[in-house]
């Protein structure tokens, strides 16, 4: 049988093979980012949130340099130069920022590197502007090869080969060279490496530079495939996190295997296109993100540390232990009531404060969002980098129910909360199997997936435009009515969280955070308690999202992007994670800052990044911690 006849009988086969090669090309790109991320984490124990930024900058540098010299020399010279520049930038970043946070608590490290991401993104905006920049095509590789009746770009074939080549080179470096042995030794015990007379500061810088250079190389190679733009840092970071979690943190082999697995599953979905099962047609190419999630869920359920991962050895230093939580004193209760009454009186103060209720509504929503995240982070001990997912599910659930389903305001709000709770129950069942940075990475990846689904599922979510025309029914249709309702919901939510923290459930949760081992040995169902906490946090985060949808009258993907998650984290840290009042203070401070200072500039990301670095370096206890310290000093005198 001729191939043509075969292809005619089995139209899927060539499509699958074609997509498979494509998948290997994408896998190489993913691997180049994930490998650096993994090596850096192994040695420094820092999850570099800014790793996608090196990838993005690599691409920008390459598209800028390549046109300077014509021909292959210009193209490949630019790729290598981009890798080199990123290596140097990586070294600079390690020396100026990372060295100061090696001994900081995990969460601060994650946030500090995220601040870098924000600053780098705005720097790119400053240098290259907001428009996409197209790069040249690779000279000599612009053609395509005929394969199974299709045309396969030569450049994709080259990319597909680069992954395994880099994998092999890295493997040789790690096993055969002194530098590689040092990396392996430091991955296990960096302190001992210094004890043997090795300059570990230099080693850390070199490792960080290496990782950044590989990411920059990966970004530069994309020059012929996609334009440089400001969104790819976060886009590639989410994917790289999935790859690293699936492959196992610190394993290079695992990273490649996982990259292939993830890329191939996506390619498979694309190749299948629209299929019909039992009369219902599914557009598989729109399910790629769901497929990615499923791959990750299955791997993590079977192997909690990923395909080749091992449990992360505990760090040799620990953050300070929290002081026991105490119920509010009479003074505390009194102040709480006064603050609520003051907030309730705000709309009636007249024209002099006409803007105040608008700002206060934003603060309330932020406070509920931050308090719900704090419940997970503080008593739960689980820092979610994807709390925007709950916010988004609540907001979209509410908006969908109110507009498309035509439900009344209260029912729509309840519907939104239920969607958020269900989503949290589903995502939480996978996420609570992990701890620490794995949990942070996984939740961030989840939120990216929720965002992408919202972005792509136009029939339900309105795609990039979002849902609008959301009008609450009376009595919530007035500013005052909506504001008072939001106040009631927020106060109820915050009180519920506080109450839970002091309930037996809260005790069990805090116990599991302090020592999961002791908790298990005392018969505490650690995973179940964490799952419930995840649902509680998700439900109230969803309530904040529902309020947001009504407050703005619309909801768009931008409002539920990763920036929302980070805002929540910054609020909690700004206020102080060790206190139940902290997130409320933080929410107030950040929201007011955003509504005043940050509104005035195009470079609010850099400003936010600077604020985060300031908190991390100068005020690690947050506002509440600072106040408590002042109070103690005052009492001591």
């Amino acid at each position, binding site marked *: 049988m001729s191939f043509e006849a075969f292809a005619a009988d089995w139209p899927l086969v060539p499509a699958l093979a074609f997509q498979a090669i494509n998948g290997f090309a994408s896998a190489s790109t993913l691997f180049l980012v994930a490998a650096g991320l993994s090596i850096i984490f192994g040695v420094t124990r820092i999850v570099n949130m800014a790793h996608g930024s090196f990838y993005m900058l690599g691409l920008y540098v390459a598209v800028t340099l390549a046109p300077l010299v014509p021909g292959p020399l210009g193209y490949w010279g630019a790729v290598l130069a981009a890798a080199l520049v990123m290596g140097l930038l990586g070294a600079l970043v390690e020396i100026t920022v990372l060295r100061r946070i090696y001994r900081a608590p995990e969460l601060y490290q994650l946030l500090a590197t995220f601040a870098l991401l924000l600053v780098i993104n705005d720097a790119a905006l400053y240098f290259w502007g907001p428009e996409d920049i197209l790069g040249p095509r690779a000279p000599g590789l612009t053609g395509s090869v005929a394969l199974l009746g299709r045309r396969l770009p030569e450049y994709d074939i080259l990319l597909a080969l680069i992954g395994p080549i880099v994998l092999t080179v890295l493997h040789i470096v790690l096993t055969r060279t002194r530098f590689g042995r040092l990396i392996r030794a430091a991955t296990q015990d960096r302190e001992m490496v210094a004890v043997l007379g090795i300059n570990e500061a230099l080693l850390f810088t070199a490792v960080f530079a290496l990782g950044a250079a590989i990411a920059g190389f990966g970004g530069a190679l994309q020059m012929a495939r996609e334009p440089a733009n400001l969104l790819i840092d976060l886009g590639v970071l989410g994917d790289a996190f999935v790859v690293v979690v699936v492959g196992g943190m610190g394993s290079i082999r695992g990273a490649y295997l996982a990259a292939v697995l993830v890329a191939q599953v996506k390619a498979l979905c694309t190749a299948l296109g629209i299929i019909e099962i039992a009369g219902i047609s599914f557009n598989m190419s729109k399910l790629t993100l769901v497929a990615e999630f499923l791959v990750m869920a299955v791997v993590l359920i079977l192997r909690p540390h990923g395909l080749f991962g091992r449990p992360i050895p505990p760090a040799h230093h620990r953050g300070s*232990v*929290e*002081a*026991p*939580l105490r*119920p509010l004193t009479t003074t505390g209760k009194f102040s709480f009531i006064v603050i609520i009454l003051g907030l309730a009186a705000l709309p009636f103060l007249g024209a002099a404060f006409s803007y105040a209720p608008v700002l206060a509504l934003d603060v309330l929503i932020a406070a509920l969002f931050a308090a719900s995240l704090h419940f997970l982070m503080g008593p739960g001990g689980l820092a979610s980098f994807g709390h925007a997912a709950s916010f988004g599910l609540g907001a979209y659930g509410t908006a969908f129910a109110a507009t498309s389903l035509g439900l009344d305001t209260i029912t729509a709000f309840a519907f939104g909360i239920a969607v958020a709770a269900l989503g949290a129950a589903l995502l939480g069942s996978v996420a609570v199997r992990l701890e620490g940075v794995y949990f942070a990475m996984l939740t961030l990846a989840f939120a990216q997936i929720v965002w992408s689904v919202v972005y792509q599922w136009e029939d339900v979510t309105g795609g990039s435009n979002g849902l609008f025309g959301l009008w609450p029914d009376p009595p919530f249709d007035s500013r005052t009515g909506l504001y008072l309702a939001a106040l009631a919901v927020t106060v109820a939510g915050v009180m519920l969280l506080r*109450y*839970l923290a*002091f*309930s*037996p*459930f*809260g*005790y*069990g949760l*805090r*116990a599991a*955070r*302090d*020592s999961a*081992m*002791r*908790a*298990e*040995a*005392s*018969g*505490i*169902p*650690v995973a179940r*308690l964490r799952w*419930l906490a995840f649902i509680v946090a998700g439900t109230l985060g969803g309530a904040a999202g529902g309020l947001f949808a009504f407050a703005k009258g619309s909801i768009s993907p931008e409002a539920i992007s990763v920036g929302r998650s980070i805002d929540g984290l910054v609020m909690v840290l700004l206020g102080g994670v060790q206190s139940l009042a902290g997130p409320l203070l933080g929410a107030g401070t950040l929201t007011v800052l955003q509504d005043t200072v940050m509104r005035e500039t195009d470079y609010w990301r850099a400003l936010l990044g600077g604020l985060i670095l300031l908190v991390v370096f100068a005020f690690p206890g947050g506002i509440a911690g600072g106040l408590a310290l002042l109070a103690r000093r005052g009492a001591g005198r």
Partner: protein
Amino acid sequence: MSVLAVEALSKSYGGVQALDGVSFSVSAGELLALIGPNGAGKSTCFNIVNGQIRADSGRVRLNGRDVTGASPRRMALEGVGRSFQVAQVFGSMTVRENVQTALLAARHRLLGFLRPAATLLRAEAEALLEQTRMAARADEPAAALAYGDVKRLELAMALATAPRLLLMDEPTAGMGVEERLALMALVRDLARTNGLAVLFTEHSMDVVFGHADRVIVLARGRLIADGTPQQVRADPKVADIYLGRRGGAE
């Protein structure tokens, strides 16, 4: 009848036989020490009994019930209390809250939401603290305790499940000589009054020979001796493999 009966446990890791047909038992009120060189299989054996790892073959029975392969949490609810080599307590809670939490877990009351936990099982928590001589420290944060007190708090928490068997992994590691002897005397008291069976591993020979009722010795995954401290100390096989010519005297 013995509280814990271990029957022909075997476990291997990639070709290395960590445990090879080990059997022993502990009765109520008895302190049994498990000793042996590093890598002899002590931790493997210990972690199989507490549910941390699974045996390749063999049985673990608790009061006659087969509990082979049960999770650490289930073992706790079946009446096994544990203390860790590096004492583990809930540092951000007060001493009383630590014990209350352990009691709430043991009674399956952790999912209660109706009343603040601080008021629940308070008297019982204080009774346990009284037993371990920690009552005076009830309101202190656990993270601020001296190490000897942390050990005693951990003991109070282990007792919260009303265990029949207490598993102690190197109970006196990291303690001074006097503290060690005081802790073991307390454990012995508790074992006698509550009819507890105690299985512990230990490197400190003064603790083993001063406090154990019976000693078992593991070497290369096999049980090579089982007897009173005097019998084990006199055993030439044990001297060759573990104690040496000076009989482990310190």
